[in-house]
């Protein structure tokens, strides 16, 4: 599916074509016909070469690493040109925020090109149905767009900030944490999600029934450190502030998991049970990538387990005000 967008210069040029055409027909002056012919040929070449330029191109994007909002990332573009002639000055328009990847020339056959330093401003789950190619070649009067089928979901995780300065006062030093208070060696301490390959005898059937997910019992070994991050997504916060709050949450989770904590995320609608490791971090980030404020007024979160708990707020009247007072730390994202 192709479409054309005339640029300002293109509109002016077309107006000039019409006027000069009129002048030539009006005067019968062959030299004006000559100029009119030049302008017609430029118009025709502009269109035909643009169409030919985008013909026979296939594009594949591959991301080398997870994408975080506001954080430069790199991707590799594989372009196949099945035409006999090269294409010039083709841009690939990324479906997220309209960034352009510019390819000065594409020779016949398959070529790969890496792009670095691309930044997506907003987190989210981008459902992509098509990829758009654009060219203004050969002249400067129009852009021709062509859509290529590309069915994919791209997840842009919240921005990960350096949150360590904030954690200094909240996170106890390893010596202070000691054993979890509510347990003793070998006792059940919490349930976490099942990871492929684990033994089925440790499944926590009650929790599984409650959460509709396969949950595993975790037994204390004496050095478990628990952290619960509570995000206030009950509405009332400004959009920018909420985005900051989400980013703070993601950063906290990332940092605490790196520090070896079992981290749980609680929002008004969703709970990600305790877990640790990179896989668990991305479970949390998946949730945070798509989270939106809910108009819940008050948040049903009431219960806190043992361990470190941090509430992340983004408004004066947080929906989790009740539980926030019980937390070991509160971060107001508006002041970050």
């Amino acid at each position, binding site marked *: 599916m192709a479409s054309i967008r005339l640029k300002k*210069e293109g509109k*002016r040029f077309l107006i*000039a074509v019409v006027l*000069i055409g*009129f*002048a*030539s*027909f*009006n*005067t*019968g*002056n*062959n*030299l*004006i*016909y*000559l*100029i*009119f*012919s*030049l302008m*017609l*040929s*430029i118009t*025709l*070449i502009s269109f035909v*070469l643009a169409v030919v330029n985008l013909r026979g191109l296939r594009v594949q994007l591959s991301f080398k690493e997870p994408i975080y909002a506001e954080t430069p990332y790199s991707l590799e573009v594989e372009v196949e040109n099945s035409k*006999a002639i*090269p294409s*010039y*000055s083709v841009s690939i328009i990324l479906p997220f925020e309209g960034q352009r990847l*510019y390819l*000065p*020339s594409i020779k016949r056959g398959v*070529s*790969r*090109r*890496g792009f670095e330093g691309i930044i997506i401003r907003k987190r989210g789950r981008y459902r992509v149905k098509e990829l758009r190619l654009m060219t*203004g*070649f*050969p*002249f*400067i009067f129009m852009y021709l767009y062509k859509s290529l089928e590309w069915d994919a979901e791209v997840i842009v995780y919240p921005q990960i900030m350096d949150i360590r300065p904030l954690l200094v006062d909240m996170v106890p030093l390893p010596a202070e944490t000691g054993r979890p208070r509510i347990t003793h060696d070998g006792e059940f301490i919490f349930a976490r999600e099942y990871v492929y390959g684990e033994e089925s005898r440790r499944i926590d059937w009650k929790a599984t029934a409650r959460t509709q997910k396969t949950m595993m019992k975790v037994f204390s070994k004496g050095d478990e450190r628990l952290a619960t991050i509570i995000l206030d997504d009950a509405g009332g916060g400004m959009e920018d502030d909420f985005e900051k709050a989400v980013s703070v949450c993601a950063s906290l989770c990332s940092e605490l998991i790196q520090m070896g904590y079992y981290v749980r995320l609680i929002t008004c609608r969703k709970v990600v049970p305790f877990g640790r490791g990179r896989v668990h971090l991305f479970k949390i980030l998946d949730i945070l990538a798509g989270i939106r404020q809910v108009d819940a007024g008050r948040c049903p979160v009431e219960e806190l387990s043992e361990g470190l708990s941090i509430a992340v707020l983004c408004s004066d009247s947080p929906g989790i005000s009740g539980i926030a007072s019980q937390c070991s730390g509160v971060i107001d994202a508006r002041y970050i």
Partner: protein
Amino acid sequence: MPGIYKLFTAIVAIIGSVSLVSTGEINPGFSIIGSILLYGYYRSLRGYRQLPREAVGALSFTTFIVFLVNFYINKDVFISVAQMTLIFQAIKSFDIKEPWDPLQVFFMSLLQLLMASELTNSIYFGIIFVLFVIFIVISILVGHFVIEGQRDFGPFLRPMAFITIVTLVLTAMFFVTIPRLRSGFWGGSLSRGIKTTGFSEKVDFGSFGRVKQDETIVMRMVVRPDKGGPYYLRGMTFDYFDGMAWYDTHKDSVRVYKTPDEFHTDVPLNAERYEAEVYLEPLDSEVIFTFKRPYRMESEGFFLREDNAGALYMRQKVSKRFFYKLFSVDGFYADKEYLASYLQIPPDIEGIKRLAEEVTAGAKTLTAKAEAIRGFLLKNYEYSLFTREPPEGVTPLEDFLFYTKRGYCEHFATAMVLMLRSIGIPARLVTGFLTGEKNEMGDYYLIRQSDAHSWVEAFIDGRWLIFDPTPPVFVPHKRGLLLFVDVIKMKWSRYVVGFSSYDQVRMATYVFNYPVIRLGMFRSLLSWIILIIITLIIISILIGGLRMRPFPYVRYRGVSAEYMRFVKRVRRNGGRLSPASDTEEVLTEAIRTGRFDRDAVRRFIEAYRFLRFSGRQDEAMLREFYEQARRLRRDHG
């Protein structure tokens, strides 16, 4: 903005301004102001600071005021606008800051070219137009890549050349195929054309001194069959002479019957037929110059009138070149109206009458009398472009006949007409042209202002017979290159300026009726275009299919070019390398020669491999490459 883009912008601006100045219609003062753009672009290319926005605004406003004043003075809005664009181009040359600025220059140059097209139809416009096409296309292409952030145009040279050629070919194709209309819906053409002097609708003996030989070409004529010149191209006839000047007093004329493109005059067709294609430059006259006795004429778009003496006229003066084709027969005019008026003689010419009677005393027939007068003038009088002011009481004609005996064609023809009339033979003066030199390269006759001529028609035996009493004059002809240039001018005049719907119909007929290529078809414009297209296609196939590289060095611009230079240096220093040698061999050979720094060579080759074959662009690696290249050059420049 890259310097190359500024340079192309400057060229396009200069072409636009030159197109206007070359018309000769622009006030020299404005041309000089316009030439300031050279300094403006010089500054721009040297990277000097451009004018601030406020200064550009103030200068533009001042230019507009100048335009108003200019228009108030010369009352010609077209010329005033043209002159204003020259100043705007000059101002803009100091204001090239953003990649978008050149676009304004391009549009202004286009406007200038458009105005120039209305002010001239010279071949120089054609040359300027072709240059404009080449540079505007390349400039816009460069502009495209500049806007996209590119700075190295090496990889795009080939598509640029291709697109420029395609644009030229397509322009030619559009030019010949766009239907030719002349609606005149809104004011018609403002074209000023070229006004030439020389031929005049009045024959006057009121001025004296040397007559300037004007070499301006008035028309070109192809004659078929050509039996060798010179030919008389008949213009006007004159019946009344007052002693100083000739007048045409019979103003009645009829409109000639016209089918779509043809005029027909009532002439029997029982004589040998001729065809004459005439390419007439704009003259300050409505006269159509005819060859022999025309019975049919093909032309476009204007009325034709015929007076009682067979002279043809357009409805109005045409200020541009135009083409007409005459179909003629050998024969003479035979109009009998107003015969009495062709016996008119001014008072007090008894001397001339006595001379005529004396000269024709021995002649029996009217034809013999006329021939006797012609022979007398040819034998006893001398052709001269210099005439003196006659003494008091002597008319210019008497001075010629009885005293100086020197004069030019008007003297000879007038003398003969009056001598004929004085002995009772109706006669009239005819003005027109005598075919001058023949351009053998183009197989056509060149007719200049200096070929303007007067001769005599005498009514004898019911026909107007032609007599030319002027002695022949030797005129040096053009040679070689000048003739070739004139052929080009002729083609330009015929196939571009004079291209018409008539030609389109002929071309279409030709294409549909003559699909087989014959030798003769190479004469038509369409054939040339087809030939060019076929040639281009063949060249493209050769270049593409056989992988030919017409400009091999272009491939090696930038990194590759530097590498190739290094390879050459290694070879010069004793390295045994062939064109097929790979980088490893180059490395080995360069080290083997012992003439290059081993470390520099290794780093240079490694950087080259990365930049050339990894498909990645790495600034650091590029810097490394050129650093090592410099090191190697320093050692073995």
